[in-house]
């Protein structure tokens, strides 16, 4: 029928990039780090500045520490986006979980507090799943709505516990701020978590169904998939992940507030999109989202170093995310 011919190296290279979309992202990450080093010599390679090593483990550790909660929230976005959905309640769920945990720890003890925090995430997630899967509300609207409701409930809850005071569980502080071999302890949570997400997406029936629903829901139905079951499980999982990310973030920030993790919300969507996950469903990679989270963190550092006013920083941040996504889409030919 058709013959197979050998293509010129450039074409093959292009196809290689298409099949391995994480590679250009990693390259871009290194370019950004190089720019950072040029802007502020010594921040990445303190050896030249006469400090502790070839690469600053302090800088690297910090970068990873702050990228972890972002990457965890990005998991919520990657998983839901695979089905052409989104979870806009993730940031608020993380905040709620952190607040609940901090306030309940001093009353009920750490164990029940953590369990209640995760349960709160599960409840919001299940409601999202029922709305999306059974009532067929668009995920954008559904999760926006539950997010707003959760914010309101949190404010009411705050009045109830106003005198209880707050306490941040020791192991969360250890996870959030402690270091082992110069690397943040958060990796003890994150590495198994990331491996679980990879496994879930690539090697489980559930993962297959996420891709299937995002590619062609009708084909999935025809094959006997009851979509609502998948949606309920998916958004419930997303809620629990968001709550877990909130707990870790609590350990990192060591403060409670009514909007603790909310600023991570849109960057988590950005990390997923930069990482090559299609908002139209059926295409996505968690490795890409992790690199996306690192890229966002490096960009953040860069913009902070430039000492720009907050407004200009936000504008520039938005522009850079758009540019990165556009270039990335051009390179990989994906959407």
């Amino acid at each position, binding site marked *: *029928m*058709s*013959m*197979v*011919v*050998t*293509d010129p190296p450039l*074409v093959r290279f292009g*196809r290689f990039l298409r099949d391995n979309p994480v590679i250009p992202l990693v390259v871009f990450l290194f370019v950004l780090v190089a720019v950072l080093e040029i802007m502020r010599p010594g921040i990445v390679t303190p050896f030249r500045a006469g400090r502790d090593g070839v690469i600053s483990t302090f800088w690297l550790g910090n970068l990873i520490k702050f990228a972890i909660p972002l990457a965890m929230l990005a998991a919520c976005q990657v998983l839901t986006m695979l089905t052409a959905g989104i979870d806009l309640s993730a940031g608020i769920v993380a905040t709620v979980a952190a607040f609940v945990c901090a306030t309940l720890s001093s009353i009920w003890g750490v164990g029940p507090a953590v369990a209640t925090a995760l349960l709160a995430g599960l409840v919001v997630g299940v409601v999202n799943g029922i709305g999306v899967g059974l009532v067929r509300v668009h995920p954008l609207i559904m999760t926006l709505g539950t997010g707003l409701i959760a914010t309101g409930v949190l404010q009411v809850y705050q009045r109830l516990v106003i005198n209880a005071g707050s306490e941040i569980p020791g192991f969360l502080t250890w996870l959030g701020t402690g270091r082992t071999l110069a690397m943040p302890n958060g990796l003890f949570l994150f590495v198994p978590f990331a491996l679980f997400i990879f*496994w879930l997406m690539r*090697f*489980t*029936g*559930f993962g*297959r*169904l996420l*891709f*299937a629903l995002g*590619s*062609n829901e*009708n*084909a*999935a*139905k*025809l*094959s*006997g*998939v*009851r979509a609502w*079951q998948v949606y309920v*499980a998916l958004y419930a999982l997303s809620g629990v992940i968001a709550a877990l990310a909130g707990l870790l973030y609590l350990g990192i920030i060591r403060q409670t507030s009514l909007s603790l993790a909310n600023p991570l919300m849109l960057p988590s969507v950005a990390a997923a999109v930069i990482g090559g996950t299609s908002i139209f469903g*059926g*295409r996505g990679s968690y490795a890409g989202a992790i690199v996306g989270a690192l890229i966002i963190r490096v960009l953040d550092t860069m913009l902070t170093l430039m000492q720009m006013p907050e407004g200009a920083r936000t504008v520039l941040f938005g522009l850079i995310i758009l540019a990165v996504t556009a270039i990335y889409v051009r390179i990989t030919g994906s959407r």
Partner: protein
Amino acid sequence: MSGTQLLDATGIAKSFGAVRALTEASLHVSEGEIVALMGANGAGKSTFVKIITGALRPDSGTVLIRGREARVGSPAQARRSGLVPVYQEPSLIPDLDVADNLRLTDTPVEPFRRWVEELGIRRLALSDMIGDLPLATLRILDLARALASAPDVLLLDEMTAALPTDLVERVLKVMRQKADEGMGVIYVSHRFGEISELCDRATVLRDGMSVGDLKIEPGVEDRAVELMLGQKLDLAARDIHKTRGTTGDRPRMRVKGVAIAPKVSDISFDLFPGEVLGVVALEGQGQDELFECMAGFMPPRAGSIEVNGVAADFRHPADAIAAGVKFVPGDRADALLAQRSVRENIALPFSARIRAWGGLKLRHERARVAHAIARLQIDTRAQGEVQRLSGGNQQKVTIGRWLATGVDTLLLFDPTRGIDVRTKRQIYPLVRELAEQGASVLFYTSELEEIPLACDRAVVIFNGRVVDIIDAEVADEQTLLRAAYGLVAQEGAA
């Protein structure tokens, strides 16, 4: 007949990555000429059509329209230079009404109306929503829209597939008439009947190359098939081994007095183990709804369906699948995950139930998928995504999905629509083989000549009712056609 050259495509080549879809394809159309473009599965027909109509750019070669080099860069440009395509899938926007769709392409309304009537569609209002109209009507509207823009060259790509016979006749008549007025027509089709009735010449593609230009004359079919396949083969699948279904047994599936809004009023028949039961119907007689109902997509309004003597109350396709009833829909796009691999597509039903949501049993899956691929002879060189496969291979994937899980009852809705002769010839024996192994197959086809080839009996549906059940063995096309039109069949069979 032949005057000025309208379209001259010469030496067209196109590669996708490492796969060369076209190496040297050429096509010429003169004024007043109707040229068939033929080719087996994967010969490069679709790529060639896309290049001629400007949807793809060729790597090399030229496309001249009226002798002028047309750097056809986009479908809109091709349209302006006088070449208008009509595809198998209507290109009308479902959420707009007819008038708005015309406005989108700047189509004059009056000529459009005239053509719609000429092509045999009555009762069409410009305010009808496209999404509410049946597929056959949409095809005709698409064609009328193309004609209304007074094209120099009209390209029809499998336009008559699944069109009811009376509309096909009209289309052919109008084409002939326009050609006499000087229009050129490129007719992409698998149907020899229509080609020999309509066309002046046929250009045959094989492996991305034009391998022959045939004058249409008696016996041209054999020569064309020879060229398409690159070897001599019997055209008809006469040698298919048929054993009769054991109709004496308890029926596998019993449809009793089923009514489905709005088209189906009263359908009853039994489907026995080991038989292939054909469904003969013109477009829109309720067969779409019948299949969807039997597959669990919608409940019947009245009547009942039994599987193995037990009342089946399907609320979801999952229920039908659990009862062993598997459905292959008419539109491949409905059934496939276009961006996913062949393996994932075939293995999709394995993961459907909650208890299979955990870790994949990859070894088991690979074995079953490999078995289905081998049995159907699916060409999987385009490993990556199902959308890169040819139409015939895609269709095999939708069937292979159910072979991999095991089949009791298979509902095949027009499985050979728009696919090439070679793939068709693989599908009939497969259907027979399934029946021999004890499966029941309900087989609707829009091409009547397939009924005696593949089926034991055929149930004839007209206007939402069963009007006849006939022995497929003795049914010739004329008998079937008369029956499909609701005429008494005895006369033809006698």
